């Protein structure tokens, strides 16, 4: 791979830049989207998803007490291997951060996530939903949306914002 390409060269960049300190310009990406990908500060792959208990961002369902009872707080699913590495136990509150932002989440240590073996190195993946955030629950106990972490990059084929694969760091809160 060409070393100039820190991200997929065919991806749609909404604002253009050439160096880390450049101001955004048309046709490229923000510095934190382009130059922080593959950075050692954010070593883990993250993905986002929904839960069946909440509709989309949860704005329509988070004020329903029955739904809140089932799915009350932002969580992040991590593998047992990564949890052992980070000293995180099931149910601990941890911080997930990317170049764009930071959210807290309750750790779900699970076999459902397994580390990948990619080119002889171990790559950990974490996953968190984006159905929490604004307004409900009113005491703020739900946490924030994982959309605060995602880059503003368009998928190479469809130009849909690429919120399903990005780089984060995970640490104990």
């Amino acid at each position: 791979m060409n070393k100039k390409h820190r991200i997929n060269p065919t991806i749609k960049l909404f604002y253009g830049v050439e160096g880390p300190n450049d101001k955004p310009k048309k046709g490229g990406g923000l510095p934190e989207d382009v130059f922080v990908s593959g950075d050692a500060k954010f070593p883990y792959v993250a993905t986002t998803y929904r839960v069946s208990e909440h509709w989309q961002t949860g704005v329509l369902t988070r004020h329903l007490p029955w739904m809140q009872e089932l799915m009350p707080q932002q969580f992040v699913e991590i593998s047992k291997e990564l949890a052992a590495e980070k000293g995180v136990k099931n149910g601990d509150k941890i911080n997930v951060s990317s170049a764009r932002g930071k959210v807290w989440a309750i750790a779900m240590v699970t076999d459902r996530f397994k580390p990948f073996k990619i080119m002889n190195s171990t790559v950990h993946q974490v996953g968190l939903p984006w159905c929490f955030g604004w307004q409900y629950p009113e005491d703020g106990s739900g946490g924030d949306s994982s959309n605060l972490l995602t880059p503003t990059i368009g998928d190479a084929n469809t130009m849909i914002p690429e919120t399903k694969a990005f780089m984060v760091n995970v640490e104990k809160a």
Partner: protein
Amino acid sequence: MTRKALLISPEACIGCRGCQIACKEWNQLPATKTINKGTVENPPDLNANLYNKIRYVELPSEANMVRWLFVSQRCMHCEDAGCMKICPAPGALYKTKEGAVAFNKDKCIGCKLCAAGCPFNVPRFDEKDKISKCHLCSDRITEGLSPACAKTCPTGAIQYGDRDGIISDSKKPGYEKLYGQADLGGLGVLYAFKDAPKLYGLDEKPAIPESIVFWHNVLKPLAYIGLGGAVAASLLHYVAFGPKKDEEVKKDE
């Protein structure tokens, strides 16, 4: 009336918990404030406002990366019900003609003995200490409707019907053993398990605690004999010696 039953197939369940909410909706039960404790399972346990709960069991598996079982946890509507055996309040717990173990909060005295008699740890008590549990939607099934959980289940993991029909329908390859077919006189909630019931969080051989059986079969009849004996003895005394005269009072007069 033929006995009705639920058939629960954890292998068909997708863990959407529609049944948990449908139950709350029909029975008009409020939500409790919960927090995430590192599992999707919530609330953590059955409570006075939760008659049916999905238990999530994550198992290591060789065939798949992960095996995740979803098991509905609720009153089993035993034929030989330990709670009814021990309940001292007539009418607080009763059998409907469909075979459901239903309850009447007005007649419950809040002694909580039923919790001791239950082999499945089901009865919960509200703020007035009155029993709360699944009653197989007894108000729906008497009208010929299916229970709210079975009605809402999108995958058929909870099926409702005549108990005999359900048993014969469920016998498919891999599901030969039906949990609860013969236990405790036959449960009203049957489980089609692929593996040992223990993996799904249920006892291999559920049984009413022996102290309860002893209480019901030995002590309770003995108490009645004792009560009858005391009445008979006092009658006999009355006939033989006449009414008791209060001599002290007479002297004062």
